[in-house]
């Protein structure tokens, strides 16, 4: 459905020096610096998948989305959405996609939400039954009627986002691009939004591309993940595969020995070098071990041999931990931009 082949986007930024004198000097000499926001990115998103497009701030997510929606033209490489190059066939592509940019409104500032929807209905030639069905759905799930005749500029962020989300779904698009769609929404509305997109996916087979810094959004909506870092793809696959790339596993246990927490910790860390044990307030102990060095069998055997276990469980590695690792690496000082260790399998 969506294909990117060696996609590159570079920006030319004017260098500005700080302070008044600096500003004056830029009047005379202006130097430009080329910033590569998207660096040779290739990926393929199959039809009917719900993909989380993940990356730290500045990883090139929004720029890629802007090329896929036809707003910007790549510096080199190409991408297609449903077989069309969006920046070449912008208007035709626009009919098949629905877009939410959390940061910018696409509604008409001076019009009410119902008026905006009437415009969209004409612009997209939405058939009457589809329009009715979708409006009913938005009424039920997003309480869109409550927005009433207020002009969009007077709506709160949460109210506006509800309208933006509804507007992106109004014409039954084949592909949804949602860039930070749930900012400003409370828990109930976030749930409603997740329900809405999952329903569109189930009933219409909509392909979804989501960028969000809300981990819960990703977990509740997406089945696949595309992780970019410094403008490069570092992981593509199912969300489960991504979780498996976690390099630490954990075991949490309770014991009946009566040994002091400090002693337990010392004994584990001495017996299994490289493992970290952290006692919690309730007397339970969390053991984090590097997945490459120990198997779960080794760790569990050690624990069973040395302690009288009352209870234990192994929590699934959290998406948050996996992502923190990826995001954290983006900020390591001295990190070379030549991509060493950042090849697609480098993350695994």
């Amino acid at each position: 459905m969506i294909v990117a082949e060696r996609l590159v986007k570079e920006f030319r930024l004017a260098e500005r020096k700080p302070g008044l004198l600096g500003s004056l000097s830029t009047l005379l000499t202006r130097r430009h610096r080329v910033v590569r926001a998207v660096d040779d990115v290739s990926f393929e998103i199959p039809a009917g998948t719900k993909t989380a497009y993940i990356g730290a701030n500045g990883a090139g997510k929004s720029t890629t989305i802007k090329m896929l929606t036809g707003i910007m033209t790549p510096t080199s490489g190409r991408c297609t959405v449903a077989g069309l190059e969006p920046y070449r066939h912008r208007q035709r592509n626009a009919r098949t996609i629905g877009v939410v940019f959390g940061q910018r409104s696409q509604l008409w500032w001076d019009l009410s939400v119902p008026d905006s929807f009437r415009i969209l209905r004409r612009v997209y030639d939405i058939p009457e039954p589809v329009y009715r069905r979708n409006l009913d759905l938005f009424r039920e799930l997003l309480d869109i009627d409550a927005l009433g005749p207020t002009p969009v500029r007077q709506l709160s962020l949460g109210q506006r986002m509800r309208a933006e989300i509804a507007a992106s779904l109004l014409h039954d698009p084949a592909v949804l691009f949602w860039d930070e769609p749930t900012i400003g929404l409370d828990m109930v509305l976030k749930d409603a939004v997740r329900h809405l997109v999952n329903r569109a996916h189930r009933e219409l087979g909509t392909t979804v591309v989501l960028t969000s810094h809300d981990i819960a959004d990703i977990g509740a909506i997406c089945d696949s993940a595309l992780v970019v870092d410094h403008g490069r793809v570092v992981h593509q696959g199912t969300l489960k595969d991504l979780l498996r790339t976690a390099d630490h596993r954990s075991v949490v246990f309770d014991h009946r020995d009566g040994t002091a927490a400090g002693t337990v910790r010392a004994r584990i860390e001495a017996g299994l070098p490289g493992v970290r044990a952290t006692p919690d307030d309730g007397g339970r102990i969390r053991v984090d071990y590097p997945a490459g060095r120990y198997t779960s069998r080794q760790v569990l055997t050690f624990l069973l041999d040395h302690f009288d276990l009352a209870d234990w469980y192994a929590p699934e590695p959290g998406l948050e931990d996996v992502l923190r690792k990826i995001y954290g690496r983006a900020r390591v000082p001295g990190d070379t931009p030549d991509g060493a260790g950042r090849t697609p399998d480098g993350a695994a």
Partner: protein
Amino acid sequence: MTARLRRYTPFATSGLQSLLQYRSMFAMTAMTAAAGAAVTVFLWRAVYAGTPGRGPGGFTVEDITTYLLVAQILQVLHTNRVDDEVAAEVYRGDVAVMLVRPVSYPVMRFFACLPVVGANAVLVGLPVLGLFALLVPLTAPRPADLLLFTVSTALSVLLAFCVNLLTGMTGFLTTNTWGVRMVKQSVVAFFAGQLVPLALMPGPLAALAKVLPFRGMVDGPLTLLLGRYDGWTDAAGVLVQQAAWAAGLSLLCAALWRAALGRLEVLGG
């Protein structure tokens, strides 16, 4: 073709809807236009007061009054807000979200400006014209000239749209579009013949003004309204020149817009 154009009609109706929220704006525009017209009209009437019959440029005192008043009203019709809105959307990057819609941005802008022009004509132009008709004697046009004027005014609106769109598109190059707009306003006011009729300009300057597109915005419609042409071919010539410039500028807008989009850089958000 009509099906495609129908897609744009909601932009015209919604433009009117949002416009009507700012009613006091029309009162302000009317007052500004009336004040501007009063200054030029009474100044020029003083110039022509000493000359009975036809004065400089072959204008009677009624002719020059009509010329300046209608020129002022045409200027109001040409204030379609396209220049500042496009400029603002371009440099703020809001143009990006407009591009996710399956419509052409310039065509959408054109339809959105139509109600602005219409509302200005009805709520500002006609009242100001009526007010001055009560105060000073005006030249009554011949019916045929009135018809020619109407066609010519429609073309002048199209010209003004193109000029303002091009002005707004400078937002791709500079953030100081305010300065560009000021320059445009002065150039248009001068070369369109809104400040000084082309007939009163020194030879070389008038010759230059006559080949520029701005002429079709004020001088063209008023040449026809006041019957200051020499036979039908001359009158048709005015319209043809306007139409040619309108077509030329539309093509230029389309080409530049396409080129600008290819280089569009929207950072952040």
